[in-house]
């Protein structure tokens, strides 16, 4: 800026500035016009090419529309184009081998074979326009189809991928809000396509030919392979998994699918000789009528998956706690009783000593709760150990004889609460699946003791290594006061068991946040997340991914310019907002830093009512003086060994049926001769 001698602005520079502004405006106008002209030219050129290649354009438009309508990932369109290549190859071969003088299909013509193959698309294109010119539109379409369809689908896939890329990076759409709206619409279309796949008969079998488990239809996947079917390998079901979902979100449907898949795949592997027979053990820690309904549904579904038998504990089948080895049995019995600390530790030690004496008596471990209670008798213990010459044990019995009745009282109360469910004769070996119902809501103390006993029994059974075991625990936190779930996890890991923990919320996974993170972080088989209000911790565990964020410049007058800036930043792999909005039957499967959103396929088993209690057990309970509904299992009598008195024999042995059948030698000897041994 220049000033005059008198210090005032001279008019000349102002005019120069105005002229400069005018030049800039004119230059800007020319630039705008040039850009508009260029765009028009480009649009005209593209339109001309699209019109010239009308068949390809039509196929591309159809492919892109299909991708948009069904929310397909571009890879699926590329695959569709690849599947068309055999058609194109056959057409090229036919054109190359067609006799020269014979009138052939569109695309044929003179020349050597290689030239005819190379020129075939051009000749087909010419033939297409010629036929269209004569009004033969159908023939024109057929003439152009072999080269145009694969090319068109490929072009449509590329266009759809470009559109997705623009929207994902925030550079597409008319407004900055457009990508979010586009994503919401895309989700709805993807979910609709997944539901349509679920409805297609036979589209989603339980197992793939290679033995992987199909859980449902894929809605969307991030960092996972995007297939139509959501498939997880059997090995992942043999690892720890976590399932979180509120009531009514389809958690039971998902669990049934996973259990049935485990059973079917395990049985197939067993039939192929690739592994031991599978065993599914479910600990339903809620209890009540709803658990019975789920148990019935589980039985039906597993039966269709190939399981021979599903035992419902404790309603229909009973396990035997007394099959544990003596040292393990002592520990388990002591854990079933709540102990005090401080001064009460003295009584704990006395109890441990007496239980050890009763279990480790020279005549062998007890065979039933009645047998065990009968042994808690100072006179009997002293007589048994005295007969074996064990002076130290006799002295221990004498020093603790005052506490014997107290200990007996506590165990009698325990067994009254527990009932006969741990006093039966079955083992985990007797069924393909065990559905154990623990009354964790109504009777917490009983359920805690039962959970402790069942896990000990299962751990002892797993040591044999005869079965591939999946332990599924639902709402275990309700009964985990005495057995923290992380300890169950670590114990299962050492025994080769797979543990599947399910809960209605993140808080229901375990008692403390530390335990919850420990459980979720060690779920090598993945985490299933259904609709839940607090997916944050799992989203945090799922990890982050690179994400392009774009700003848009506001150009004024209600429109955003197409210029702006983009930068890369980190965003969670698992979209917590989607998880909060998941519909019934939809789940997010988080595994190795990726997530797949799945529409779970529901399994329906044939109708079958819960079997009534065994008549023999009811009769035995009635004979023992119980009420008609008291289904006490018959307890086998254990004969006295080496001259020791049998505990409780005077009271009950005569009432218990013997497991050995009566002697039938009379008829067998007469018919077939002497018994062969």
């Amino acid at each position, binding site marked *: 800026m220049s000033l005059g001698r008198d210090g005032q602005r001279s008019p000349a520079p102002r005019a120069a500035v105005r002229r400069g502004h005018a030049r800039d405006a004119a230059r800007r106008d020319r630039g705008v016009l040039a850009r508009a002209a260029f765009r028009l030219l480009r649009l005209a050129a593209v339109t001309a090419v699209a019109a010239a290649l009308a068949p390809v354009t039509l196929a591309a438009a159809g492919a892109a529309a299909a991708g948009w309508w069904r929310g397909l990932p571009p890879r699926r369109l590329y695959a569709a184009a690849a599947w068309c290549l055999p058609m194109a190859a056959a057409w090229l071969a036919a054109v190359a081998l067609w006799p020269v003088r014979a009138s052939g299909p569109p695309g044929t013509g003179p020349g050597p074979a290689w030239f005819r193959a190379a020129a075939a698309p051009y000749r087909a294109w010419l033939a297409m326009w010629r036929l269209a010119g004569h009004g033969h539109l159908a023939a024109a379409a057929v003439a152009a189809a072999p080269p145009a369809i694969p090319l068109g689908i490929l072009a449509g896939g590329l266009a759809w991928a470009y559109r997705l890329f623009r929207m994902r990076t925030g550079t597409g759409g008319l407004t900055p809000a457009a990508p979010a709206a586009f994503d919401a619409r895309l989700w709805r279309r993807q979910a609709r396509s997944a539901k349509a796949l679920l409805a297609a008969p036979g589209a989603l079998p339980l197992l793939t030919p290679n033995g992987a488990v199909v859980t449902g239809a894929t809605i969307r996947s991030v960092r996972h392979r995007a297939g139509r079917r959501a498939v997880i390998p059997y090995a992942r079901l043999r690892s720890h998994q976590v399932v979180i979902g509120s009531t009514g979100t389809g958690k039971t449907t998902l669990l049934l699918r996973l259990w049935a898949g485990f059973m079917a795949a395990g049985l197939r592997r067993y039939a192929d000789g690739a592994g031991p027979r599978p065993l599914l053990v479910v600990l339903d820690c809620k209890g009540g009528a709803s658990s019975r309904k789920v148990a019935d549904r589980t*039985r*039906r579904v597993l*039966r269709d998956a190939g399981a*021979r*038998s*599903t*035992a419902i504990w404790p309603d*229909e*089948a*009973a396990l035997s706690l007394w099959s544990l080895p003596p040292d393990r049995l002592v520990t388990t019995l002591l854990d079933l009783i709540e102990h005090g600390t401080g001064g009460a530790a003295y009584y704990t030690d006395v109890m441990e000593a007496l239980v050890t004496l009763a279990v480790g008596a020279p005549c062998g471990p007890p065979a039933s709760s009645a047998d065990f209670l009968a042994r808690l008798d100072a006179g009997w213990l002293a007589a048994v150990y005295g007969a074996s010459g064990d002076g130290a044990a006799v002295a221990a019995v004498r020093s603790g004889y005052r506490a014997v009745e107290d200990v007996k009282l506590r165990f009698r109360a325990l067994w009254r609460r527990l009932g006969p469910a741990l006093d*039966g004769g*079955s083992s985990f070996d*007797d*069924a393909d699946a065990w559905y154990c119902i623990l009354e964790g809501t109504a009777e917490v103390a009983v359920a805690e003791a039962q959970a402790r006993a069942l896990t000990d029994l299962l751990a002892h059974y797993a040591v044999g290594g005869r079965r591939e075991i999946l332990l599924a625990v639902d709402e275990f936190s309700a009964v985990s006061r005495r057995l923290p779930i992380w300890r169950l996890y670590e114990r299962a890991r050492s025994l080769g068991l797979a543990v599947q923990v399910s809960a209605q919320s993140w808080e229901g996974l375990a008692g403390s946040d530390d335990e919850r993170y420990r459980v979720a972080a060690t779920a090598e088989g993945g985490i299933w997340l259904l609709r839940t209000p607090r997916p944050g911790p799992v989203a945090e565990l799922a990890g982050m991914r690179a994400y392009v964020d774009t700003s848009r410049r506001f150009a004024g007058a209600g429109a955003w310019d197409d210029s702006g800036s983009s930068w890369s930043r980190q965003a969670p792999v698992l979209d917590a907002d989607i998880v909060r909005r998941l519909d019934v039957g939809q789940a997010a499967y988080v595994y190795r830093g990726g997530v797949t959103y799945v529409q779970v396929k529901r399994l329906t088993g044939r109708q*079958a009512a819960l*079997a009534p209690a*065994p*008549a*023999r*057990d009811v009769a035995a309970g009635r004979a023992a003086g119980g009420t008609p509904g008291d289904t006490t*299992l018959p307890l086998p009598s254990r004969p006295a060994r080496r001259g020791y008195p049998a505990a409780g024999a005077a009271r009950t042995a005569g009432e218990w049926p013997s*497991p*050995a*059948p*009566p*002697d*039938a030698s*009379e*008829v*067998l000897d*007469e*018919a*077939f*001769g*002497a*018994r*062969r*041994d």
Partner: protein
Amino acid sequence: MTMRDSRRPGLAVRDADALVFAADMYGVQLDQLAALLGGERPARAAAARWRSLGYAQTARLGPGPPWLWVTRAGLAACGLRYAPAAPALSRLAHIRAVTAARIALEATDAYRRASAFWRCERRLRSRHGVGVRQHLPDAEVHWPDGAPVAWAGECWAVEVELTPKTVARTTAIMREILARTGDYGCAAADAAVPGRPPRHARALYLCSPAALTTVLRSRAELGPRAARIEVRDLPPGALP
């Protein structure tokens, strides 16, 4: 024509029980039919009569006496819904052995006194769904409740072993028989339900000398359940 019709034998089958027996066992050899009817002459007479009625056919299917089996008309007359077929050549020895076992057991005083019932494999198989993979015993013996025997009310599974299988396979079959809780033909989920009383109180294994060792070793694998396995020799005349 009228004369022939008037001479045509009626439905008065004198040995109806034997005809049902032959139908149940897939077929019998004439010497076994003779043991059943008390002599060779009554057996030949019965066979001739059944043949003339169209109820049975006879043929020499293998070494030894001729075989007799019941035709479709005979099965209909007996009220049995089995698929009519001649005894399979590959099973002739097994059928003979099972038949001999049945004749020997039914000849005992205790069996007759108890009015026990032999439920043959053909009857079990007729209840069994096609394609169901479960092991079928060669027979079941039902002892009625209240019969004057100590084992009244029991159901036995009968297995006739002529050739040795592997110990593992035999043990698995024994386990399956002893663990079974449901009748044959029941829903798969009811076949073996823990906690329910077992269907078979015991399993009776009748063995040839060749199979005896394997069966004994398999029984030893069962542990406490071995008390429910009875192993005996095949009766005389069971082997061809």
